[in-house]
């Protein structure tokens, strides 16, 4: 019989907690959300021996159990709730050898919850370079725990960690600190009122805003002892608690942890002198961004062309080899065309996630926060807004979630509101196809016009985000306490395994999420384009044949005439035609109108939609791009010419066409007010700018 134990990984940010998780679980992991909130929940499984499996939860990184954000609350809520199905049999605290002292603060807190606790000290590979020596046996005694000294970088100690997990029952449950020593009168009283409760857990319930145990919390609040304490007094007690904990930690480390400064090399300071230099720091950051965009455009073109051709061949193959009929048409024209429209962008999206993962893994992202804080504050943002703004280039949804690290509510709200202006990966397909249609090939200062246009669009997104942030900063009258603390972690070479897993997981969820929507919409669109009401649609053949001049048509021309007449009078044609008057001044025809409507589910649907619309009734199997290139206006000129192309790109740059973003903003701001304001103002900006540009260019 196989049995499963629950293991929770807990640790400060930047300790390599995720590396430990990846080392234990490999690809046996699943990323989801905690119910009702948008905090990412990572779990995985690991076989410890032939009879025992570990179910591992990678909890969000936290500096202490005193939660200051929703992510951190998840940690304490799980650890205080014995009835949770994920409640750990063993808590594993991950620490980093260089920051052991600070990391142990969280360890002592976890230990005081009286759960079996194992201490993992990661990055043992750095000990020699930093002149650190450690007496593990003695430290184990002082901290009353088992220690696993590991290096995820060199893949050392992982097997030992697994044996420690198997043996979790032998771990001591004894706490580290006698909490009554902080304030004997206060805690003595508390114990009298709740004689059968753990004091530290009570203390956490009093000081934290956790919703795990509303009843207990209410009981505590009813007690008179609690009412007499002001917030300021509680905070002083928390400070005293921290001091006591550090005294205990210093005592434990005094003889067990030594650093020989003469052997230590400090490349952090050396690198910092260049990377956050007041001049070179900015130049380097700009060059990095420039490189990323160039690479996304250049390197991905080969696999993308390959995918595009494969899909058109697949569609053709389906049509020729399956018996003709409604189902074959649905498959070839609806589903395959629609899916091709998303799968083609996997290379680019993977590259984007790759760069973001590397920037975060190396520790460079914190330096960017430091460099940008003062400048962004002018616009009502924080240096920490840089992370949402940069990860917004992948997707606005994780970006909006990443704003949780911003301590100040006004700065956070403004960041949430302007993040959707950042060019996300869903806009990329739209831009790429439009750029290749309307922007000529050619080079300027070694960079192609097309690459420059793409970069211009990214810069435009950033500029618009800053401009609107500045305006919001003037309008919004919100007073909130402002503070800003960010750790500057040591530089690390990114671990290939971590980066690849991140890229794989993120790309997979992007494709699955988007793929689902696109599949549904492709089918719906195909149905709406293949059927129509009234005799204009159902008797299209007779109507066209009955017209004059028809004698001079070839068979092929006749067929095309019929097909386009049908499309025009199908359900989708009617819908598109009805919005045409509104979008005609922007240079869009009714087919683009359909794509705009369906884009509201997700922007990347745009290409798939056009692919589906143009392929209905079209027997020549062509790539998406060639089909778009062949589209003509009523007067015979190209539909996708420069003015329409630019106007369309601007519309996509500014409009909030994404239901998921609206949903996440609603969650993070607790209501419909902000997402609605966001939707209306962004659509207005998009419409007006597309209008102005088209009218000038055309």
């Amino acid at each position, binding site marked *: 019989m196989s049995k499963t134990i629950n293991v929770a990984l807990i640790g400060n940010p930047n300790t390599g907690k995720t590396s430990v998780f990846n080392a234990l679980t490999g690809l046996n992991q699943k990323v989801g959300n905690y119910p009702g909130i948008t905090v990412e929940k990572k779990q995985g499984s690991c076989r410890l021996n032939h009879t025992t499996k570990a179910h591992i939860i990678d909890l969000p990184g936290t*500096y202490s159990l*005193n939660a200051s954000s929703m992510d951190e609350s998840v940690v304490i809520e799980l650890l205080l709730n014995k009835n949770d199905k994920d409640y750990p049999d063993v808590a594993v605290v991950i620490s980093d050898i260089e920051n052991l002292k600070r990391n142990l603060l969280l360890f002592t807190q976890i230990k005081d919850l009286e759960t079996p606790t194992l201490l993992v000290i990661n990055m043992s590979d750095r000990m020699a370079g930093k002149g650190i020596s450690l007496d593990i046996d003695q430290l184990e005694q002082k901290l009353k725990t088992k220690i696993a000294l590991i290096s995820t970088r060199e893949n050392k100690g992982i097997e030992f960690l697994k044996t420690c997990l198997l043996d979790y029952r032998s771990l001591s449950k004894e706490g580290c600190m006698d909490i009554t020593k902080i304030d004997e009168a206060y805690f003595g009283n508390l114990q009298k009122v709740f004689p059968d409760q753990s004091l530290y857990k009570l203390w956490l319930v009093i000081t934290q805003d956790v919703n795990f145990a509303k009843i207990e919390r209410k009981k505590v609040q009813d007690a008179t002892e609690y009412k007499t304490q002001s917030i300021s007094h509680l905070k002083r007690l928390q400070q005293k608690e*921290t001091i006591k904990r550090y005294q205990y930690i210093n005592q434990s480390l005094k003889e067990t942890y030594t650093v020989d400064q003469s052997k230590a090399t400090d490349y952090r300071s050396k690198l910092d002198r260049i990377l956050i230099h*007041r001049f070179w720091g900015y130049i380097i950051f700009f060059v990095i961004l420039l490189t990323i965009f160039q690479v996304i455009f250049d390197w991905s073109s080969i696999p993308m062309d390959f995918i595009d051709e494969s899909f058109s061949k697949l569609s053709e193959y389906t049509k020729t080899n399956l018996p003709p009929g409604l189902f074959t048409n649905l498959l070839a024209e609806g589903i395959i065309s629609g899916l091709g429209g998303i799968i083609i962008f996997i290379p680019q999206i993977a590259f984007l996630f790759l760069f973001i993962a590397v920037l975060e893994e190396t520790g460079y992202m914190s330096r960017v926060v430091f460099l940008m804080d*003062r400048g962004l504050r002018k616009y009502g943002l924080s240096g920490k807004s840089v992370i949402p703004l940069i990860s917004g280039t992948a997707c606005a949804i994780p970006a909006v979630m990443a704003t949780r690290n911003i301590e100040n509510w006004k700065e956070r709200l403004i960041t949430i509101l302007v993040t959707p202006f950042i060019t996300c990966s869903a806009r990329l397909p739209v831009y790429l196809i439009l750029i290749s249609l309307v922007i000529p090939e050619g080079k300027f200062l070694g960079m192609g016009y097309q690459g420059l246009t793409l970069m211009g669009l990214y810069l435009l997104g950033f500029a618009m985000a800053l401009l609107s942030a500045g305006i919001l900063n003037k309008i919004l009258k919100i007073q909130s306490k402002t*503070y800003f*603390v960010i*750790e500057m972690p040591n530089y690390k070479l990114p671990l290939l395994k971590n980066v690849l897993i991140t890229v794989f997981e993120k790309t997979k969820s992007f494709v699955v999420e988007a793929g689902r929507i696109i599949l549904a919409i492709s089918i719906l669109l195909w149905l709406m384009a293949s059927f129509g009401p009234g005799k204009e649609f159902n008797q299209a053949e007779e109507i066209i044949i009955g017209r004059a001049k028809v004698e001079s048509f070839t068979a092929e021309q006749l067929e095309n005439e019929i097909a386009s007449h049908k499309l025009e009078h199908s359900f989708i044609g009617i819908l598109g035609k009805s919005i045409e008057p509104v979008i005609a001044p922007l240079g869009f025809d009714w087919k683009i109108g359909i794509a705009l409507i369906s884009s509201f589910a997700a922007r990347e649907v745009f290409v798939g939609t056009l692919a589906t619309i143009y392929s209905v009734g079209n027997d020549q199997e062509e790539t998406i791009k060639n089909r778009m290139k062949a589209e003509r206006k009523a007067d015979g000129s190209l539909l996708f010419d420069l003015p329409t192309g630019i106007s369309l790109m601007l519309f996509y740059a500014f409009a909030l066409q994404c239901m998921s973003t609206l949903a996440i903003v609603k969650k993070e701001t607790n209501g419909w007010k902000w997402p609605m304001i966001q939707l209306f103002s962004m659509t207005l900006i998009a419409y007006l700018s597309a209008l102005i540009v088209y009218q000038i260019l055309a």
Partner: protein
Amino acid sequence: MITLNLIEKNQLGKIVAIDTDLLPLKLIEMGCLPGNEVYLEQLAPLKDPMYLVIDGCHLAIRTETAKNIKIELI
């Protein structure tokens, strides 16, 4: 005794007092406690934020926060 925002490069300070009501608990937990040593690693342009090393912990805070920390130069 000066406030931490006035510390200069190559000076070593010792924290003597902190304003608990105004400082975030997170900063205190990262080691910003009386008795601990602090030095300035680097300043961003316009001298804000400050990149400090407090008790061996590398972190950045804004000058307005640093004003709530009193230090003694040693």
